[in-house]
């Protein structure tokens, strides 16, 4: 009987977002029933983890959350495409190995070549945080704190480019 009453008080406190351990009656009961206190400790630990954690089980998330998440994802994917930064430098001022510097007046088409780039994709929607970045010389860094897979396809079109050297600037 006391057990039912005690847990009812614990539940009521949690419903009202109060600390059940502030209740003097519960304090006495837990001291008398350490096993019940252990059960409460486990419950508290799990509720804390639930409120603080970022679940990978998005398919189990409430409907309204799925909707907002889907919306955020759409925004995030758009943001990914927008923030995808591809810097292609052709024939910089300084000579680069493999590309001969032509004397002024002999400007002609050269094959475009990526000398350096940095690609960063960031997806943050409150549930998922995915980040990938890579540069030509550095290693690929990926962090993803969300385990549900999202299929994202990005098509990057590469145009054939012609570049003519400017006699004045040599660029």
């Amino acid at each position, binding site marked *: 009987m006391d057990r039912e009453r005690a847990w009812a008080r614990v539940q009521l406190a949690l419903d009202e977002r109060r600390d059940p*351990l502030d209740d003097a009656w519960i304090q006495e009961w837990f001291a008398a029933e350490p096993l019940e206190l252990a059960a409460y400790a486990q419950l508290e630990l799990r509720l804390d983890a639930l409120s603080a954690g970022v679940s990978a089980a998005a398919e189990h998330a*409430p409907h309204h959350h799925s909707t907002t998440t889907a919306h955020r994802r759409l925004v995030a994917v758009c943001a990914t495409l927008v923030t995808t930064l591809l810097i292609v430098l052709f024939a910089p001022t300084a000579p680069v190995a493999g590309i001969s510097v032509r004397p002024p007046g002999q400007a002609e088409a050269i094959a475009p070549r990526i000398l350096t780039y940095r690609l960063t994709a960031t997806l943050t929607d409150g549930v998922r945080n995915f980040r990938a970045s890579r540069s030509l010389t550095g290693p690929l860094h990926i962090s993803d*704190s969300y385990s549900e897979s999202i299929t994202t396809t990005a098509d990057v079109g590469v145009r054939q480019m012609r570049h003519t050297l400017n006699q004045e600037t040599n660029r």
Partner: protein
Amino acid sequence: MPELRAYVARLARGHEREDLVQEVASRALRSAQSHDASRPLGPWLKRTALRAWIDTRERGARSPRLIEPPEVAIDSNELRAIDVNEEVDHWLARLCGIEREVIERFHRHDQSLREISVALEMPEGTVKSHLHRARRKLAALRNGEECW
């Protein structure tokens, strides 16, 4: 102090009892300013004792285990977050659908009982029943235990 000792004696045995008394005294001194002087000290100390007991128990449950060192450096905070998430998903999966939804709405998304009631189109009392049942399961579930 004798009252505190007597209270702690009901929570812990042997050397753990003395450790707990010291821990409670230490916490009480550290957070003395958080105590409302207009309210009795006893319940505040008892609450501190219960918190200390719970924290001590959690520390014990999370004692480090020796594992193979990782070959690459991994951010330990990231790993901890993954562990917590996996654990949360593990026991959430053991709740029944409606219980999982209600408890996530209430404790994860901080929705009120009324909001949940409206969103799920069910009486507030029913929401409470599901929520209470979910909490009871979380308090009782051990690894490998299935939803009943």
